[in-house]
């Protein structure tokens, strides 16, 4: 009966109860989403870092780590690869040659790390091939060997051009752009712009301020194109210190969420690079290994350290300790964030329950007079708070669950901050992810907050003197 009265009392003042229920619901939603976004971001960052950049484990010649001299190849590389074939925790590995080269296009020069890879092995280790904007990832054999570069390297080499071609104007979506804009675009002419800045200037000259503000960014993107097929001349040393200038043709351009990586890393066929640089057929600088999972990757790093004592073996947490630290950092941030939400929530519940108690002084006095002992009064007020909180918690669970399900598929696009995020290596589209443990923990914490918050109002009710309480109006 106490529970029944508690539940019915919740619905006495529907508006007030609904305010608390909505507050609890939003509290849970806020906590779950904040935690989900942070975890999603970090999970994506860790995934991108591992599957695009560093893999789970890397093996090098120990001295190569200090001085990236091209002659410091891995000793007994073949033997190491044979051993890796026998370890079940090794899902895939990719032997690489890694050199720094000056790269020259017809219009600009830039410094790039050139990774010589065996295509078939590389795509098992790295997901760069999934991030191609144009072209392919080192497919087929060509007279002029292929190179795959990042979009930011392409921009630095002035290989991202802008041109208002008649074909592109014809295929502009007339529903999306007003006719007058399309006709004004024709005035820009067929000129090719190598810099975004110059193309934007041309647009501002031909469009009104309002038109440029509304359509400028979309037009820049629409008329941009990468100079796929352009040749790049690499300047690097061979094993004997001689400067060589092999030429590669761009056959793929990729874009990851890390602009720094995209601006600095190029991929070529390892055998070609070894031939140009006079490295032996089996000479490699790096073995990148993928394990069954991130935690297993850490353990594999430790295991392989013992296996290959003569080489430098590093797990991803040691290669990039800041990334490993992110996980702990986000957990801490999540706790702080949820803590603040719960703190605010506690005050909401205390306020509502105090109002509820003070409004019913006479009734509580009557209950005490006719024989409801203090324990029962206390439980009744507690039950009301807990019902309020649980109702809000269920609503919050359902609401957060739906939003998480949707955003987990579609992602949340922070496009307007994309530049900043990507400069730090984070994707501007985040897919919130919440583990069941986090989800249940947040709900339990909210319910505990509800229970704790009800103690004060319940104690207030206990202090009532039935005689005085009955006298109130």
């Amino acid at each position, binding site marked *: 009966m106490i529970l029944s*009265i508690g539940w019915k009392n919740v*619905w*006495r003042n529907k508006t007030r109860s609904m305010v608390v229920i909505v507050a609890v619901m939003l509290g849970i939603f806020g906590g779950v989403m904040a935690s989900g976004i942070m975890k999603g971001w970090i999970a994506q960052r860790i995934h991108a870092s591992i599957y695009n950049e560093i893999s789970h484990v890397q093996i090098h010649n120990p001295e190569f780590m200090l001085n990236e001299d091209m002659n410091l190849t891995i000793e007994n590389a073949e033997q190491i690869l044979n051993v890796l074939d026998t370890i079940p925790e090794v899902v895939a590995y990719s032997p690489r040659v890694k050199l720094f080269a000056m790269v020259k296009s017809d219009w600009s020069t830039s410094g790039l790390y050139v990774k010589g890879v065996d295509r078939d092995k590389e795509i098992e280790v790295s997901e760069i091939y999934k991030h191609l904007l144009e072209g392919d990832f080192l497919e087929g054999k060509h007279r002029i060997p292929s190179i795959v570069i990042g979009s930011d390297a392409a921009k630095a080499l002035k290989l991202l051009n802008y041109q208002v071609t008649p074909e592109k104007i014809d295929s502009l979506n007339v529903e999306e752009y007003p006719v007058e804009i399309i006709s004004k675009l024709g005035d820009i002419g067929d000129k090719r712009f190598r810099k975004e800045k110059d193309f934007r200037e041309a647009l501002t000259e031909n469009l009104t301020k309002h038109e440029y503000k509304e359509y400028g960014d979309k037009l820049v993107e629409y008329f941009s194109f990468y100079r796929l097929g352009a040749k790049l001349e690499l300047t690097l040393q061979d094993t004997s210190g001689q400067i060589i200038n092999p030429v590669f043709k761009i056959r793929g351009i990729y874009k990851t969420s890390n602009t720094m990586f995209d601006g600095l890393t190029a991929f070529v066929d390892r055998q070609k690079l070894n031939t140009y640089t006079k490295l032996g057929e089996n000479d490699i600088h790096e073995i990148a290994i993928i394990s069954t999972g991130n935690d297993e990757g850490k353990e594999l790093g430790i295991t392989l350290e013992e296996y290959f004592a003569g080489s430098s073996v590093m797990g991803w947490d040691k290669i990039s300790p800041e990334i490993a630290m992110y996980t702990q950092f986000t957990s801490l941030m999540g706790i702080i964030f949820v803590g603040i939400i719960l703190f605010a929530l506690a005050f909401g519940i205390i306020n509502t329950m105090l109002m509820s108690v003070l409004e019913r002084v*006479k*009734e509580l006095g009557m*209950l005490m*007079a006719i*024989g*409801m002992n203090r324990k029962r009064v206390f439980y009744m007020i507690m039950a009301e708070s807990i019902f309020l909180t649980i109702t809000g918690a269920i609503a919050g669970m359902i609401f957060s669950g739906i939003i998480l399900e949707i955003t987990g598929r579609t992602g949340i696009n922070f496009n307007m901050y994309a530049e900043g995020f990507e400069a730090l290596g984070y994707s501007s589209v985040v897919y919130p992810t919440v583990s069941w443990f986090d989800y249940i923990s947040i709900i339990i914490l909210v319910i505990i907050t509800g229970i704790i918050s009800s103690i004060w109002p319940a104690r207030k009710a206990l202090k009532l003197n039935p005689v005085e309480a009955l006298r109130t109006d």
Partner: protein
Amino acid sequence: MKVIELKKVEKIYNDSEVKVHAVRGIDLEFEEGEFAAIVGPSGSGKTTLLNMLGGLDKPTVGDIYIGGTHINDLSGSKLIDFRLFNIGFVFQSYNLIPVLTAKENVEFIMQMQGISQEERYQRTKALLEEVGLGDRLDSRPKQLSGGQQQRVAVARALASKPKFVLADEPTANLDSKSTENLLEIMEKLNKEENITFIFSTHDQRVVKKARRVITVEDGKVLSDERK
């Protein structure tokens, strides 16, 4: 059989700077089956006396025995439990729990006593039928008139099978028809089931029905008339 015994009961309030002597040495006894009214002007000590009879307040001096139990010795939860099992209350403004139906309001007190569901149901039904509300078991207080609510309150007061029922101005908020009706029910219960009723009232209609009228003034019993 004595239900209530007050021996040289005094009540002094020390809360404010001025001492208030609300009750001054009252000796009273109530026998089982009495239908008594305590009357007196405002500030006469009538309410204080009633509170002490109901175990809601304790005397500063003197002793109160209810059903032989010296209630001065009871405190906190024991006193609340004592009230639950021994005293029925009817208040001026009905004081039903608004979220519960008539049936639940009556049943609630028995549930606190730990009475089985079956017995609760039977007794609730019987009590509400007795007060003429057999057809309003599932009505909420706001769906009932003032008179009907007060009848539910009487049924609730009787639900715990108390030694006596204390009714504080039970007719103050009722029209004459409802008052008549309520008094008839209480008189019937008193006569047929020997239930002791003690009223605090200003209402002459109640005074007329009462078989004993105790007049209180300045904290003292001015007269104690039996009809």
